[in-house]
């Protein structure tokens, strides 16, 4: 099976899943429509009516990790092709990636020492 045929199958799988979900929604709508009632559409907060919208500037405390993650994610892009040809290339590949990983591990250690790897209280 050619690669394009496989992509077609995957695209078909995706569209099939979306179609399945919409048919499920249609079945549920056939069973009954939901009735508008006061207070029903307010997001549930354990018995208290909190009407105010909550789309505010969320204070995430993990931005120290997030910045280092972005750099490590880039590193992963190089790891896969290297991993595939690793056994064929032998020691050169090991040393090469050793240097690459060591450089990046330095970045991690630096972040660690500067306190990036903690919940920024």
């Amino acid at each position, binding site marked *: *099976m050619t*690669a394009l045929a*496989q*992509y077609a*199958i*995957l695209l078909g*799988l*995706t569209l099939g*899943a*979306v179609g399945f*979900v919409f048919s*499920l*929604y249609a*079945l*549920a709508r056939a*069973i*009954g429509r*939901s*009735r508008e009632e006061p207070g*029903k*559409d307010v*997001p*549930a*907060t*354990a018995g208290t009516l*909190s*009407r105010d*919208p*909550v*789309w505010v500037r*969320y204070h*995430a*405390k*993990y931005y120290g*990790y*997030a910045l*280092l*993650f972005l750099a*490590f*994610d880039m590193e*992963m892009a190089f*790891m*896969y092709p290297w*991993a*595939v040809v*690793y*056994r064929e290339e*032998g*020691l050169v*590949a*090991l040393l090469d*990636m*050793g240097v690459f*990983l060591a450089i990046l*591990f330095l970045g*991690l250690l630096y972040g*660690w020492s500067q306190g990036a*790897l*903690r*919940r920024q209280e």
Partner: protein
Amino acid sequence: MTVLVVLLALAAGAYLIAILESWAVHGRLEPARPAISALALLGRESVLARTPDRLFFEAGPILLLVAGLLAAAVIPLAPGLIVTDLATGALFLNAALAYVLVALIMAGWGPNGAYGMIGGWRFLGQFIAYAMLIVMPITAVAMRAESLSTVTIVQSQAALWNIAYQPLGFVLFVVAAMGLAWLPPLDLPTAPGDLAGGVEAEYTGVRLAVLRLARMVLILALAGATVTFYLGGWLGPWLPAPVWSALKILIVAGLMVSAGRLVPRVREARYLELSWKLGIPLALANIFIVGVIALVVPI
């Protein structure tokens, strides 16, 4: 034809995992329970929040189901029994699983509810913890198999399963997989204790049914991935190939669903800290060890 067989196997597996999970939660083995609750969910109203981001609210469950299905599409159940044997299968699995995060951010942000929003952004923090620990073990597996194709990876374990070859990678991958499917003790986005349902809170009726189905498919795909990478896929003596992979996948899924309930919910800051300060150095060490073994030992 094989696509149909795999999809049926997927549906049956998702049902069995639903039984395992309700057994783990309620302590009673009720085979009919998932069917009844699915039918009941179909019968309940599907309420829409007041000022939602309607696109996100609808797209969340659907994207989660598509991510789970595409991840399961590259899992080989037998030598010929796979939806698509991509040459970069392992990478494609990883790409599909990345959209679980996008789906949960949408599901959390969509309904404009406090618990959901906090759950969504908390899962992003959890993603940053487990993301590296999924990618690096897969790299070590690909190093040994010299290919990213999942079928080749399974065939490369003919002599020795990867769980024996690289046990450290196995442990890291399983813990990261439990984090990815937010199974307890890493159920931070829907923490019943401090977010009362979190991301799932605003979904009712048929949308909740789709969300729960998507999660079952996701758990099945992750169990399949663990079996493919570390437990030798369909390889095994005596029994035919599909029986082996089905057995292994169900055992791994059962363990993933129930083993975590013995430990209290892990705090997000603690999980991030453990992953980055302990997990990533171990994963790099795992890559280095596998690198050395792969050069020295011919199998």
